[in-house]
């Protein structure tokens, strides 16, 4: 099982490459073009990450995040969410780069394979920057009356946060 899981990534790399070759894709060109785009993504998010990690580190050092976590601990623990992730829950729907910063800090502080680190990763991987997306879509479509779109999207986020905490415990044993 361990071996099978660890072969998923290399297996996917090989099968995608073979499939691309079979379809006559310029494989090397596509790989490097994608990697180039990856570099551009890093460059594009770097300025925001620098500013936001500064703020996140300050918040962490000041004890404000612990305070907030302690305050909400009864509620969060009752539903199964690790209280340390409170900062992530707050910024996730509002700012993608802030969420990346908070998540990275959690993974570094608690370890990427800890319960908190894994939960933060799954939360990041399975939710979106809801308010940003809503704003982009509705302004592109010229919509002013958004009706129930925001509450329904937030329901999805809430379930995502809860489910992230549960699935990590269930599938990864904490």
């Amino acid at each position: 099982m361990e071996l099978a899981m660890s072969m998923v990534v290399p297996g996917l790399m090989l099968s995608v490459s073979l499939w691309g070759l079979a379809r006559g894709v310029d494989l090397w060109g596509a790989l490097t073009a994608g990697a180039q785009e990856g570099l551009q993504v890093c460059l594009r998010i770097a300025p925001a990450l620098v500013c936001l990690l500064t703020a996140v580190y300050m918040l962490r050092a000041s004890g404000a995040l612990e305070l907030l976590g302690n305050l909400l601990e009864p509620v969060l623990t009752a539903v199964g969410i690790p209280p340390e992730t409170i900062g992530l829950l707050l910024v996730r729907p509002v700012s993608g780069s802030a969420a990346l910063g908070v998540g990275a800090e959690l993974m570094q502080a608690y370890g990427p394979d800890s319960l908190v680190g894994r939960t933060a990763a799954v939360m990041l991987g399975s939710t979106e920057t809801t308010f940003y997306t809503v704003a982009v879509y509705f302004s592109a479509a010229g919509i002013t009356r958004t009706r129930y779109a925001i509450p329904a999207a937030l329901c999805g986020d809430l379930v995502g946060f809860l489910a992230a905490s549960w699935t990590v415990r269930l599938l990864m044993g904490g």
Partner: protein
Amino acid sequence: MAMAWIWTVMVGGAILCGLATGRGEAVSAAALEGAGAGIELCLAMAGTLCLWMGIMEVMRRSGLAGGLSRLLRPVLGRLYPDFAGERGVMDAVSANVSANLLGLGNAATPLGLEAARRMAERSPGEASDSLCMLVVCNTASIQLIPATVAGLRAAAGCQTPFDILPAVWLTSALSVTAGVLAARLFSRLWR
């Protein structure tokens, strides 16, 4: 504008709280440490991110996205009954979903916006049920390989950054389902 407020509240909160708990010096040291950590993080995650963006580009060029979107069309017709018969809209919607699944955010957004514009033509200014559903589906992340998060985990020293995949898939499925159900429920209640 929102970011300006988030930034100011975070920094202001840290300073107030740091002074109140007597950790003012730690806060000031953390500011410099955090700025350096931002750049370190970008460098550390760049490798994983580049590799996966490369693999995804191969997926896109080999027509995987197109095939996926043909597979998805019948399912999506049920989510957007008002537009199931309109080819242009359903083409854009299914291409949007398959680009999202493959993690091609840059490709997914223009396709989704195209679908949103066409949907809005029927009810200018007000979000129809289908348009709300489209927005809800796009606010729920459904990507199969979350490359950025895997890059973050690798940057933090994780040996197996992709072992979260089953948990991510299950969580995404649950949160999309919750969003869709909420949209359906609210569409009956909201008049």
